[in-house]
């Protein structure tokens, strides 16, 4: 999507109307682009992003709010996209992991930190971690170490044991490495 630029609103194809009484017209902003679509009542926001907009960077792990892989920013606030309906995003501003840096842009400081610290192993959970921390960055200021960890508890990683993820998060916010002994 981010490579289109300036061609007017995006209108993803509408699948066959299986439940004609339960369709809704929605318009929203996704990664700075206008999107208009028809969606079923029951379509999850995560599936709207992945199946209709082909923004497959948003991953779906548990679909019950436990794992955090589907985290996105809704009006700048990090939420689970599997626990929201697409129709509830009508008129709202969404940002997904694709919206952090475009294909030709340099990585954001957050992404760069995950790259340098290798804050991942299989990578399935990574988009969720990035969006949770992007949401924390939206709050402004420098979060405390505890605030970073509290945000990280909302995301599961089943590979790494979180060591490098915590290092990457601290680097991104300019805090000391949690594994290094401190003077204090």
């Amino acid at each position, binding site marked *: 999507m981010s490579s289109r630029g300036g061609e007017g609103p995006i209108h993803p194809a509408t699948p066959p109307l299986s439940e004609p009484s339960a369709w809704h017209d929605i318009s929203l902003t996704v990664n700075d682009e206008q999107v208009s679509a028809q969606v079923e009542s029951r379509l999850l926001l995560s599936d709207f992003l992945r199946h209709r907009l082909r923004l497959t960077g948003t991953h779906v792990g548990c679909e019950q709010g436990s794992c955090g892989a589907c985290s996105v920013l809704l009006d700048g606030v990090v939420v689970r996209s599997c626990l929201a309906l697409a129709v509830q995003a009508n008129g709202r501003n969404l940002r997904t992991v694709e919206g952090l840096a475009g294909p030709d842009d340099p990585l954001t400081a957050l992404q760069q930190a995950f790259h340098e610290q290798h804050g991942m192993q299989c990578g399935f959970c990574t988009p969720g971690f990035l969006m949770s921390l992007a949401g924390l960055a939206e709050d402004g200021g420098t979060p405390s170490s505890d605030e970073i960890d*509290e945000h990280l508890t909302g995301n599961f990683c089943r590979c790494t044991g979180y060591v490098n993820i915590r290092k990457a998060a601290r680097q991104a916010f300019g805090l000391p490495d949690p594994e290094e002994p401190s003077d204090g």
Partner: protein
Amino acid sequence: MKPAPFDYVAARSVEHAVELLAGDTDAKVIAGGQSLMPMLNMRLGRPELVIDIGRLDVLNHVRISESGALLVGAAATQTQLLAHSGVNSGWPLLTTAVSNIGHPQIRNRGTICGSLAHNDPAAELPATAIALDATMHIQSSRGIRTIPAEQMFVGPFMTALAPDDLLIEAEFPLPPAGAGWSFREFATRPGDFATVGVAVQLVRRDGVVADTRIVLFGVGGSATRVHSIEEVLMGSSPSRVENQVRTQLEAELDPADDVHASAGLRQDLAEKLTIEAIAEAWERCA
């Protein structure tokens, strides 16, 4: 999994929402959806109609009234409550309980009233609302009524709300001057539903307990206020009646075995957490 089909209507007003509720016997209300959406995704709930009240500005408030009570509208998120500068100083029991709910990502969308109306037996807010003697403001097409939190929670996932009722606001009175409080829970991991937890409000006067409310959750069908312990504590100091508190808890509670914990573990946790919480609330009394 994906939800079964349903119709969705974004309510235009509270009146519109209760009119829709009155017209469909199989409707569910959604605000933040952090309890309802997992149930829809797992098809544990299959409503015909989902009524969205999350965009109603008239329900989106966390404010302190002229009489000093905290008013939380049905669309206000748990994050909004935690961000309100006056809430933590006046209602530290409430903010501590809310900070134990899920994770920031959940609290950013989850609402106070939604958790109260859902009444998960392991949820923090029903017990906290009873401990703080909160009041539920309820609207339906038949009018507006008010009930104390103690009458709200009748069983697991069951409340005093009729099918056409909408919980529009929770009101938390200012705790008595100098009251102590404690909130303790045991969960396998931070952010998980509690295995067992307890909320305590306690007033000390002349070196003895003058008033207290002790409410456990995760030990039975719904949040459980244990009046018999309160009676043991009244007119005494907690350290003198610790054994009686323990005996009463053994007699009163009857937790069930489930996949998360055995009945015996829940009973042990309930006793330990309650004794600790009473001592902590006592120490916090001004």
